[in-house]
């Protein structure tokens, strides 16, 4: 025996003389042997002992050899068992039938000691290969499950970083939706309360997908927290914040980077200031219905450490709405590869008019899904809507 561990062989035969002779022979060859007197007790033993090999007589009352094989192959737990079928009349037709009904190999009852030894060894070798394959598959499944649990836990953490929708300031309402493409996304958005009726809003997109993009975006989001910005930038000016973020977040060695839009809403004088870095995703919907994209052609963060990002100021009126969004919302192809695109997104927003923002946000996502004809977006999708209400904002 070339295997250190003793292998187990189950012998199923209703005829005592033949069974005992075979068992004795196998024991002499160094195998552990289990005997079963008919098909039914054979199946029980197979389930209980999971032997490496089963040697099975063809002719048995009730469950005969081929019927035994068929049951084993249908059984989710047993179906990979190795079965060596024994027969006294080894006609080619009979061998073919036995193989077709689930036997792995044949052994003539008249076989020599050497042939028995060789066939049993072959069967045991196949069994150990199958077992190894099963073990490895099981191990991969376990590891995969563990990875998925970890990803889900990380995804829940990322979602916990997102702001709660509702009233951000007296007279300022916010809604949002977030659909990461791989469970764990590289898009992130948040609001920063600067105090005195001033609010920061941003939406960032880390290039790439998955774990690494998500880690990078969480780290930029940490940089953009109120206390950190005031300490390191000393200003709530969007351009100044992005200029500093650009210095703090160089390209990674794989060439990964961020695009971002950062806006500042001052409700005291109704001014919206914003700066963008390689990001072209904000739409301002005026109370008149007019739409304009807030974007300047600008390098993404990390491309050039000497870049100064410039702030643009706009005056806003009550009922104006600002939508910050990732390009993943409109860069969705239909089955022919045509993109939904910014213009169709604009049309959708226009069509909803003054409907509640929650309806606009869910409606825009639903429209993109209808365009691509499936639920799963190819890229992360984030959309945050902010409305300045009438009255004493």
């Amino acid at each position, binding site marked *: 025996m070339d295997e250190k561990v003793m292998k187990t062989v189950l012998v199923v035969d209703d005829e005592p003389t033949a069974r005992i002779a075979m068992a004795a022979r196998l024991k002499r060859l160094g195998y552990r042997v289990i005997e079963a007197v008919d098909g039914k007790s054979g199946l029980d033993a197979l389930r209980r002992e999971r032997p490496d090999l089963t040697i099975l007589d063809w002719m048995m009352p009730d469950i005969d050899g081929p019927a035994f094989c068929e049951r084993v192959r249908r059984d989710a737990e047993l179906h990979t068992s190795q079965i060596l079928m024994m027969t006294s009349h080894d006609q080619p037709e009979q061998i073919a039938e036995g193989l077709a009904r689930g036997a792995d190999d044949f052994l003539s009852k008249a076989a020599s000691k050497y042939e028995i030894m060789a066939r049993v060894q072959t069967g045991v070798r196949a069994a150990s290969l199958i077992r190894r394959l099963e073990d490895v598959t099981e191990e991969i499944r376990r590891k995969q499950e563990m990875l998925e649990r970890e990803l889900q836990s990380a995804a829940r953490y990322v979602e916990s970083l997102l702001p709660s929708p509702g009233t951000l300031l007296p007279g300022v309402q916010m809604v949002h939706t977030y659909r990461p493409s791989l469970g764990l996304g590289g898009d992130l958005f948040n609001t920063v309360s600067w105090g005195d009726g001033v609010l920061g809003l941003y939406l960032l997109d880390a*290039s*790439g997908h998955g774990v690494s993009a998500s880690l990078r975006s969480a780290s930029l989001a940490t940089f953009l927290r109120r206390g950190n910005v005031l300490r390191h930038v000393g200003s709530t000016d969007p351009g100044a914040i992005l200029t500093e973020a650009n210095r703090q977040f160089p*390209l990674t*060695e*794989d*060439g*990964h*980077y961020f*695009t971002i839009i950062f806006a500042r809403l001052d409700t005291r004088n109704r001014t919206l200031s914003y700066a963008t870095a*390689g990001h*072209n995703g904000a739409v301002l919907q005026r109370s008149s219905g007019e739409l304009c994209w807030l974007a300047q*052609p*600008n*390098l*993404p963060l*990390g*491309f*050039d450490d000497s*870049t100064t990002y410039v702030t643009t100021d706009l005056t806003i009126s009550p009922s104006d709405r600002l939508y910050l969004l990732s390009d993943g919302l409109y860069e969705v192809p239909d089955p022919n590869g045509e993109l939904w695109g910014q213009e169709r997104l604009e049309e959708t927003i226009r069509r909803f008019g003054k409907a509640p923002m929650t309806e606009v946000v869910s409606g825009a996502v639903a429209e993109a899904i209808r365009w691509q004809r499936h639920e799963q977006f190819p890229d992360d999708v984030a959309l945050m809507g902010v409305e300045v209400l009438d009255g004493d904002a």
Partner: protein
Amino acid sequence: MAMQTKERPVPNGVVLDLSGDLTYANREQFKTAVEAIRQKGCRHLILNMTDVRFVDSSGLGLLALVSQNFKLSQGKVSMLKPQSYVREIMSLANIQKLIPVYDNEQEALAGQKRAA
């Protein structure tokens, strides 16, 4: 779509003819081709984008990375003839601020800064 790269020496530089997609899937191939040229001490890399159909966000990052790496070794990178969609991507990200874009090889070689 896969990417092909072909290196072509010119006076005072190397032209790298690219064709296919400059995307995440082809990043190693692009990085290897460009790094080989940089290691040889090339001071001016001209990326010929005539036959590049598509650049994704990873491709954009690679272009920025290449430009930074050449700058570190006292070299520079130029870009030749990006086509419609690619040109649009480049201008949205203002990449010409980092990598000058030219419409023909002579101008790229002369390094004449001409808005393209």
